[in-house]
């Protein structure tokens, strides 16, 4: 088990939380300190008021538990619920929504659910990679990725029209999927020196980022910003090398 970083968290809720399962089973999240994917799993549980234990991995030294719980991908997060292992962050969010009582994370209407799933996938398939590459590459390639990610951010900006969150009045699947742009984005901008999102260009996205990151339940499982800043600064060279290796040949 990773040393020093294992945190045991038991939330107490003033209202009784009735789990949909017949008998409550222990909930654990295998995660990593500043992984937005790991945050997605945690925030889903917190929004539902489900107590859980957080097991932090050091990704260069993966635990037996992680390797046996996610043998296919060997990645965080993994949700352990009793003897069940659920992998892939957005799948975990849907599992949490369907398993536990509490505020809905996905809408009840099938069409609205389809829209939520569409935008969540858009974030992972079309935003993650150009965002990362826009931050850590340079020259002509970087300009290209900047253009691409800004075009995609403009689509997300449009989705926020008249809404507090992507999910409407409450945090939902798409907000959770977009968490990286609420909390990680400004850290990346600071460390890389690249300005991607300004309030002038993306007023709704900026307002949304503040709303999301300041929510009490979200805040409780966001990595400490100062620590993230130090960590990203220390890893800047590595991120740049990684980004370079991701460029098409």
């Amino acid at each position, binding site marked *: 088990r990773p040393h020093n970083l294992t945190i045991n968290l038991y939330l107490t809720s003033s209202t009784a939380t009735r789990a949909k399962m017949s008998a409550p089973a222990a909930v654990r999240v295998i995660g990593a300190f500043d992984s937005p994917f790991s945050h997605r799993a945690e925030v889903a549980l917190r929004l539902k008021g489900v107590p859980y234990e957080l097991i932090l991995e050091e990704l260069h030294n993966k635990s037996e538990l992680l390797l046996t719980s996610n043998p296919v991908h060997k990645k965080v997060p993994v949700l352990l619920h009793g003897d069940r292992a659920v992998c892939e962050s957005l799948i*975990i969010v849907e599992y949490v929504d369907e398993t536990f009582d509490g505020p809905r994370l996905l809408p009840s209407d099938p069409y609205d659910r389809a829209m939520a799933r569409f935008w969540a996938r858009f974030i992972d398939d079309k935003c993650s990679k150009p965002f990362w590459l826009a931050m850590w590459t340079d020259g002509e390639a970087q300009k290209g990725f900047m253009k691409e990610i800004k075009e995609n951010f403009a689509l997300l900006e449009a989705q926020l029209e008249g809404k507090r969150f992507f999910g409407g009045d409450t945090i939902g699947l798409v907000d959770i999927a977009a968490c990286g742009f609420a909390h990680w984005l400004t850290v990346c901008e600071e460390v890389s020196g690249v300005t991607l999102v300004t309030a002038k260009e993306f007023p709704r996205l900026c307002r949304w980022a503040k709303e999301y990151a300041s929510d009490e339940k979200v805040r409780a499982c966001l990595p400490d910003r100062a620590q993230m800043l130090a960590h990203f600064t220390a890893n800047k060279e590595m991120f740049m090398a990684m980004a370079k290796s991701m460029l098409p040949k």
Partner: protein
Amino acid sequence: MAGGGEEEAKLLGTWASPFVLRAQLALSFKGVSFENVNEDLCNKSDLLLRSNPVHKAVPVLIHNGRPVCESLVILQYVDETFGGPPLLPADPYERAIARFWAAFIMDKLVAPWQKVFTTKTEEEKAEWMEQTLAAVDVLEGGLKECSKGGSFFGGDNVGYVDVVLGGAVPWIYGTEALCGTRLFDTSRVPLLAAWLERFGALDVAKAVMADVPTRLVELAKMKRAEAAAGAAASLPFDC
């Protein structure tokens, strides 16, 4: 559940796309009557561009005048909106497992597989084929886990993952014709080889797939001849 049978359901697609095919399979297994609208991807219709402004891609399901895009999103929408046998199981954990394998098929199998046809050099093609085959090996384990002794990922009946993979069935035959590689070879992946036969023998699958496998094999042979003559490789459903 909405009485979706009477309202109009239109599917914008192309004949060779495995993503379109899986949407057609889902609608058909659910017993939904729908209209196929053929798109020319070199000359996209206004309807397609209006319905899928983000990706400008097929398939797009238009139901009650509203578009649903992205094949996995369409599959789940169809399952949740229309009556008929459920594609996803009722239990949340089993649903998570099904979604896991659907994502695996998309990210780890289809992604390198497409690259086999789009990359230029023989060396790159071989690398992508190796990755594809590695994913097939893992998927064999997935089928064992999901089928619980039954014939399909859905167990005794066709389910979500079967439909997701089902879209690729003609491409399995096309790949053998084009590259000479049998992806679901019975000596390497016996469960998947058996699945391929059983799935392909289903009345619904046969009706939906129709002559697509044959057409793809013909197209593949033509592409192989073109490649031998020095032409660049391309996927038949790209422009």
